[in-house]
Structures are given as C-alpha cells and as structure tokens.
C-alpha cells in the first residue's frame, strides 16, 4: 500500500464494508461547527444503507439533519453522551422507536473497550492528517485542539476512516492518533466551520447573581481543606463556573498555592491559571476556545488525554480519580442532591451527562453551582425529572441564597460553618426559593420511554419519558 488516501467518502464507506444494521461512530470535537457527521450520514443514506446505530460522543444543533435519517429509518438507534436542544426536543416528542442510550464521557470509552458497544466503522474528523492516517486536532484551519474523545473509537472500531481538510506530507509531526489504527483517509473541502468549532474567547459572566455564586464557590474551595500545594481542579465553561475559576486563581496567587493539574474541557481561563503558576500541567480532553487550542499546540505542559484516560471507570486509573475539586452545573437538584443535566424545565432533553457523573464520582469535592431559581423556576425540587448524577456523588450545592452541604459530608459542613460561610439545609433552600417563586405544578410526561440514562458502570440509572403536547 502506497498510502491510504481514497478518492471519495463514498469509496471509503464502500471499502469499509458498512452494511445495514451496523454501528458507526463520531467524535464531537468540532462541536457546533462539525460538517463530518452530516456529510457521512448523507452519503450513507444515498447508498441505501439502513437501520444503523449512531454512536456519537455528543450531538449538537448542527446535526439536525440526523432527524431526517431517523425518520427515514436510516438511523434506528442513538448512543451519545450529550445532545443539544434541537435534537433533544425531537427525541422527547418520540420520533425514534428505540430509546436513546445516554452514557457518560467515561462510560462511553469504557463500554467501547469492553465490547459492550462495538463500533463497525469510526469516522474521525481530523483537522490535520497525513496520507497514512496519523492525525491531530492541533493544526489547520479547522483546528480544535485535543482529539481525546476520538481515541477509543480509533483504537477499537473494526474500520477507521479519517476525514480531513488538511492533508500534510507523511509523517505528520506531533500526531495524536497514530496510523496504526487507520484504514482509509479521505480529503474534503472543509470538515467544519471554525466559528462553531471553538469560541473566540469564553467570557466570564456579567450576571450579578452568577458572580455572587462564583465568589461563594471560591470560598467553599478555599475552606474545604483541599486548596493547598498539589491541588487539582476541573470546571466547566459556564459563566458562573468560569468566574469561580477566576476568583480561585486570585486566591491561589495571593496565597502562593501551587496546584498540580487542571483537567477536563479546557478554556483560556485554565490556560491562564497554568501560565501564572497555579498548576504544573493541564490534562485536556477537549478545548473550548482559541486560547486553549493555541496552548495545547505550543505548551508541553498542556497535555492531550484520551476519553478513557480522562474518565473511564474500567481503566486501571483515570484522571478524574485524582481530582480534588470539580465545579459542575445543574438544571435541577433534588433534596437528595441528585442532579439533572439531561432535561429542561418542561421535560425536553437538552443536554446530557458529558463528564458530569464521572467527575462527580472521582473528585474529592463535587460542587454544583446553580441559582436558587431561573426565571421563575426553583432549582431545588423534591425529585429531579431525571437523575443524571446520583446525589451520593455530590458534596455541595452553591446558590446565591446559601450553601447546602450533603449531610453525608459532615466534615465539609463543619469546615464551611467554621469559616462563617452561609451554610443552609437543602430543604430550606427549596422553601426559600418557593416562597419567592410560588410552588410549581409538576410537569406532565407521556408513558413512553424515549431515553435510558446509563451510569458509568453500565447500569441503568434512570429513564427519560417523552413529552406529550406541543
């Protein structure tokens, strides 16, 4: 074989031996700028292949054409860790016969490696690749940084097709996924829209309530007993989480604390923390903005990690197990600290666990930041509409109206109380919020199960029912 470049996507699909009833997989590093899933599925549909399982690490609004393939039974099963509102709404309305299988960012690679969810053909969008299939996310017009979520697919799929808009001479230096896994390479004009792949800069919130919560969150970390040399930390890209990271950085610099590593989805704020000496290294499974992409390309202390390395429960160890503190979000939290990040206030799917329950299980301190109420809806309920992360893995809920500590963590409660922070009972938070908003009526669900939430160990955690009506 001179090289693995084939003339067209169609040829690659034909050579891969894809047939009706098989499973194809995609990674989501190009996020809402991804063209690859749509172009591959359009080609497959044209070829008359049907009844496929799509295993995608996440699905975004740009993937809405997938709904057509579902209606036409080209796709009959979905496995994913997250789906945004457009696709979620359609799923909630019941367009699919088989329930969606939601996994976590750690559970997905674990199940792939254990053979529970075998992949026939993995299609890997690559911002840079050579003609033997060595590829990387760090270079090219569609650069996305880390390719962490694509590793398990590349290593375990029966056939691997790399799709790139930036074919470079062999060998690509600084490759992430090696040629040893790759069967075919296809070049296309564009694998994505750079504007949707990474944001220019992720900005911290200007919302005053968000800033109050962020300040409290930083105080909780400061007084948790974990903020000392060797500290490790993960936070999401949400506005209040980023603000908390900024306040935390100020504390670490002021008190001269040298942390060990930051991990997860990486933003410019985490890069700043690395560069200013808050951390020794960053463990990066996904880049969120241009600054993160630039950093992973140029700074050897900013390390790319695979999804398994990040969070797999069946790996011999994963980064999440060494985490001190993780800051997470929630659409609902119940009085047992169970968290919902799958459905919105009206019951429609609009998210997914991602790394939520993996990091919550691994970190010593798992913190949820959420306002007491959004618009008029209280965050704390008697029972969440969907359990995305079990309450036993959540240590503390930070709201503008106070900090609720999981009763199982008596030590943390004591530390925060001693520090003079506003510690409240979670039932009290619910009552306070409902005094302001009124008590909401429960929302209606259909009887039909539209999705199963599979915990990171492979067990069924919860089911999501469809939404009837408009």
């Amino acid at each position, binding site marked *: 074989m001179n090289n693995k470049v084939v003339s067209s996507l169609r040829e690659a699909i034909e050579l891969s031996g894809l047939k009706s009833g098989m499973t194809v997989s995609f990674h989501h590093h190009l996020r809402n700028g991804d063209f690859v899933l749509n172009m591959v599925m359009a080609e497959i549909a044209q070829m008359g292949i049907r009844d496929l399982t799509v295993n995608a690490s996440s699905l975004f609004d740009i993937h809405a054409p997938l709904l057509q393939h579902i209606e036409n039974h080209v796709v009959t099963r979905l496995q994913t860790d997250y789906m945004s509102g457009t696709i979620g709404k359609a799923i909630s309305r019941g367009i699919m016969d088989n329930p969606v299988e939601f996994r976590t960012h750690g559970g997905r690679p674990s199940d792939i490696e254990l053979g529970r969810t075998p992949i026939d053909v993995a299609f890997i969008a690559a911002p840079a690749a050579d003609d033997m299939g060595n590829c990387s996310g760090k270079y090219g017009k569609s650069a996305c940084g880390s390719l962490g979520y694509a590793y398990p697919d590349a290593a375990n799929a029966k056939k691997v097709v790399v799709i790139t808009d930036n074919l470079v001479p062999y060998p690509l230096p600084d490759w992430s996924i090696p040629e040893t896994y790759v069967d075919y390479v296809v070049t296309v004009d564009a694998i994505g829209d750079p504007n949707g792949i990474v944001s220019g800069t992720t900005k911290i919130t200007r919302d005053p309530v968000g800033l109050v919560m962020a300040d409290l969150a930083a105080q909780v970390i400061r007084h948790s007993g974990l903020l000392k040399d060797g500290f490790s930390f993960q936070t999401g890209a949400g506005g209040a989480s980023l603000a908390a990271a900024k306040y935390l950085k100020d504390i670490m610099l002021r008190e001269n604390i040298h942390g060990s590593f930051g991990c997860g989805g990486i933003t410019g704020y985490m890069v700043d923390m690395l560069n200013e000496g808050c951390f020794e290294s960053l463990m990066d499974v996904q880049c969120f903005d241009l600054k993160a992409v630039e950093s992973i390309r140029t700074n050897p202390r900013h390390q790319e990690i695979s999804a398994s390395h990040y969070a797999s429960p069946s790996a011999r160890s994963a980064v999440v197990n060494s985490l001190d503190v993780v800051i997470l979000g929630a659409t609902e939290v119940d009085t047992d600290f169970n968290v919902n990040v799958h459905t919105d*206030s009206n019951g429609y799917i609009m998210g997914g666990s991602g790394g939520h329950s993996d990091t919550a299980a691994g970190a010593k301190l798992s913190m949820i930041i959420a306002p007491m109420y959004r*618009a*008029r*809806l209280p965050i704390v309920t008697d029972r969440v509409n969907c359990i995305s992360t079990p309450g036993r893995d959540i240590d503390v809920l930070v709201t503008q109206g106070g900090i609720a500590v999981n009763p199982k963590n008596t030590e943390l409660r004591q530390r925060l109380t001693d520090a003079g922070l506003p510690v409240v009972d979670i039932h009290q938070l619910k009552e306070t919020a409902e005094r*302001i908003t*009124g008590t*909401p*009526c429960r929302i*209606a669900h259909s009887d039909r199960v539209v999705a199963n939430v599979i915990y990171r160990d492979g067990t069924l955690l919860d089911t999501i029912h469809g939404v009837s009506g408009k």
Partner: protein
Amino acid sequence: MEIIKKASAGTLESSDVYVEIEPGSRGIQLTLDSVVEQQFGQSIRALVQEVLAELGVTDANISIADRGALDCVIRARVETAVMRGKGE
C-alpha cells in the same frame, strides 16, 4: 373606570412580562403565553384576574407574554397597563 384605549407595559426580557390591554365588552378576555405555563399557568391567570378586579376593570381584552416573571412583577406590569389604558 374602564379601559378606554389600547395600552401596554413591560418587556420580553427574562423575568419580565409584556402586558397588552384594550377596551372590551365581553368581560375579561385573557390570553397567556408563558414559558412556565405548565408550572404556573393557572396561578398567573388567577393573579391577573385578581389584579383587574382590584382595579375595577370588568371588560377588557388582555394578553400576557410571560418570560418567567414573579407575581410582584406581573402585578406591577398589569397595574401599569391598566393605568395607561384608563388614561391615568
């Protein structure tokens, strides 16, 4: 005193409510579009009726576009729309 002209109050921003009122002849005709219809639709309708009754409005067409406003905000916006509609 009744509503004598078409009037509005509020905005469509989050946590606010936009109220439009106009003269009517068949009692209170209320239409509600709310992001929290399932959770609070009934209580919002009851509140609007209550405020209109307090202000002595018996005939009016009123439409409410709610973006998750609290009761005190809904109350204030309905009051303002009514005052404006009465030409006060």
